[in-house]
């Protein structure tokens, strides 16, 4: 491994290590505050997230959507695109995937089209925000947030309308046919091939950013759009690509979630993966390796919290508080992720430059 690659991984690993240590600390603290044993709480958190095959599988299952949406947000931020809309892109991806799965019958290889539909839908959904920024100079922070709500209501309309289950009992879609579901990796668990897709995406996105000309163009536009313009880069086209790739990753996450975990679409299909993704991207230092570690960490924290509630009597809601406290503490220790954030926001403010 070259010194260059090593440095990249070391930069990602430092905040991740700090995050784990701080999470343990805050868990103990929370337990003490509510009058439980800190040791029991931490023990329950650890064993409930990585302590057994079953719990490890549950954690890894949770990792896939967090990882893909985290990568989506990271890639956008690095490109100077403030995509806060991974949640909406994920939902639209899940919607499109469900349409293909439940409205085209059942046929071999259907799962591939299901995932593809999710990615394309996510890309197009993000494309709306790209179009508004490129043509009208509308800040994508606003458009992507608003589009999240549109996507949410679109899903809730679909599961109570065109995609509602045939039996008509609940506002949810029909279950996916077997041919539209993702292959299981480990028999007896729900762990599916989506995890492999996510891990592959880590390497693909990492290589895209650091080893391709598109990646260099995107990063330079993210850090100094004017220099990218003077360089003669196709800044306008690249902006669309950044939105589209980011949206595709989030849409893919949505498709994987319905095709691999829930097996059908309903309104609350995402517990806010796309929002957690922003925290993951930043905690991961806006680097692909860091995003992987951060996604694993957030996944472990949420599966572990459920176990903590059962055994130590600490409400799982506290897990969210632990996540938040950990994130803030890591941000204070490790400022690089915020530097990236500042650069991204600076880039998105430079609308006056226009696009050649």
């Amino acid at each position, binding site marked *: 491994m070259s010194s260059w690659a090593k440095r990249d991984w070391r930069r990602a690993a430092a905040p991740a290590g700090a995050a784990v240590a701080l999470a343990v600390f805050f868990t103990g603290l929370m337990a003490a505050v509510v009058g439980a044993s800190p040791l029991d709480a931490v023990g329950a958190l650890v064993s409930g997230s990585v302590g057994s095959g079953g719990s490890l599988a549950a954690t890894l299952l949770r990792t896939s959507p967090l990882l893909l949406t985290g990568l989506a947000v990271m890639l956008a931020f690095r490109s100077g695109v403030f995509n806060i809309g991974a949640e909406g892109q994920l939902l639209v991806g899940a919607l499109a995937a469900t349409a293909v799965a439940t409205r085209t019958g059942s046929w071999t290889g259907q799962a591939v089209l299901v995932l593809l539909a999710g990615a394309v839908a996510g890309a197009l959904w993000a494309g709306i925000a790209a179009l508004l920024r490129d043509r009208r100079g509308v800040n994508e922070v606003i458009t992507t947030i608003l589009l999240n709500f549109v996507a949410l209501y679109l899903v809730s309309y679909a599961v109570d309308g065109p995609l509602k289950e045939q039996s008509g009992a609940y506002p949810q879609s029909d279950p996916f046919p077997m041919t539209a579901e993702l292959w299981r990796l480990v028999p007896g668990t729900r762990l599916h091939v989506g995890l492999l897709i996510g891990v592959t995406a880590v390497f693909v996105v990492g290589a895209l950013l650091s080893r391709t*000309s598109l990646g260099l163009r995107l990063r330079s536009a993210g850090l100094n759009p004017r220099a990218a*313009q003077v360089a003669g880069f196709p800044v306008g086209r690249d902006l669309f690509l950044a939105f589209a790739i980011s949206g595709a990753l989030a849409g893919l996450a949505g498709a994987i979630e319905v095709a691999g975990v829930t097996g059908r679409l309903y309104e609350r299909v995402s517990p806010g993966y796309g929002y957690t993704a922003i925290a993951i991207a930043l905690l991961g230092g806006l680097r692909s390796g860091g995003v992987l570690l951060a996604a694993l960490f957030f996944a472990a924290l949420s599966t572990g919290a459920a176990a903590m509630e059962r055994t130590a009597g600490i409400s799982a809601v506290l897990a969210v508080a632990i996540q938040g406290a950990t994130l803030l503490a890591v941000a204070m220790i490790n400022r690089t992720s915020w530097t990236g954030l500042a650069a991204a926001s600076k880039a998105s403010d430079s609308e006056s430059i226009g696009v050649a």
Partner: protein
Amino acid sequence: MSHPVLEALGVRKHFGQVAALDGVDLACDGGEIHAVLGENGAGKSTLMHVMSGLLESDGGEIRLRGSVVRWRSADEARAAGIATVHQHFMLVPTMTISENLALAQRAFGVLDRSALDREVLVLTRERGLDIGDPSRKIDDLSVGEQQRVEILKALADVPSLLILDEPTAVLTPAEVDDLFSLLRGLAQNGTAIVIVTHKLAEVFAIADRVSVLRRGRLVGAGQTSGFDGESLARLMVGDRAVTAPASGAERTVGEPRLEARGLGWYGADGRRALDDVDLLVSAGEVVVIAGVEGNGQQELQDALVGIRASELVGEVRIEGRPVSTVAEARDAGLGVVPADRHRDGLVGEMTLWENLLLGRNPLRRAAPRGWMSPADQIERARERLASFSVHPSDPELPSAALSGGNQQRLVLARELSRPDLRVVVAVNPTRGLDLIATGAIHARLRALADQGAAVLVLSTDLDEVEALADRALVLYRGRLRAAPSGPVDRVVIGRLMTGLEEAA
């Protein structure tokens, strides 16, 4: 004997492995103008940062009127009467001149803008430093005007020590004279003044004392009268040769390469940044457009590079073909050395090797199929950085870690080493560079013309006009005037630059 206003004793400062300052002494006496002379990267700015509280030293001490101080911040130094005019302006571009001055004064509460403007006008009169209408936004000012705002900001506090870091780089000869008489007046009133420079002429023009830095060490100091140009130059650069190689053989001017017709930049508010500019640069010649900052240089640069603002009319052709986008201009063989390298030329957070690929043509060569190997590019960057003397030359450093002169070399390394270079547009290519670097860049630009490229230089520096121009033009208030043909006459050009004389 009275103590110096501010004194540095044995100051040391390391950045990683590099010793930026290695035991440097400097004493600033009231009423005295002290020049700190040195090449880029000699440690001049670092020393000023340590003295003004921006950086903490690793060793040595700072004494304020004889007693040791440890600045905890630049604010603390400022409160003690140490004012600095930085090379990079510290102004809020979206705010007006008055607002920036109020901000520097830590004004808070409700601001009465018109009262503020009136106060600023009074201040400008008192300090003898004209900055025009104080309700203008910094964004709308030329670099030279912005610097005047910076100086006014520093003077508002009536400092006991005024540090100016390369203050003349962006000024016209007349403005330099104004600045120098202003500084002399301040010194007569007892202010200690430190002027950081790499221009020998300035030392003799203004300084009572001079201290010479080379590679972080103090290599000479004393009364200016005790030195001559030769001895100072030798101290500054060591034993290397100072003179730039003379211009090459007589060139033959070839076919037209870069043409502009009827270029106009007409703002909605009636501002005419460019007014009916026609321009022709042929293969094998160096054309220099002289002019004071803010007379349309930025707009002309953008137009020639292919950035089409909606205010722009007219046409640009390279080798007869119209170019209306940056991509077209670049593909036609255009290399650009932009006026503002931080904004237009480099990505500070990116590494040196990545910055060398920051152009559609070099990037396409490095990654013909869109795919590149960082390890290969790092290796390739090493040679390129060495041949353009970029220092430090570790390709994996971020470009922001380089000194200004080395950043400029980095831009040149990218823009001038294209094998298919046809036209060069360089705006103030040697701004902020030392003698040797300036000579080397001038030689390179001339060599490019010798090899048949069309070279257009926009410059605010008369020395540069003289050193480079086969043909000189002057840009004044958006209009282009031809200087009289024959050898460059700096008096005539100087008058054209300031609008004192109509073109012949």
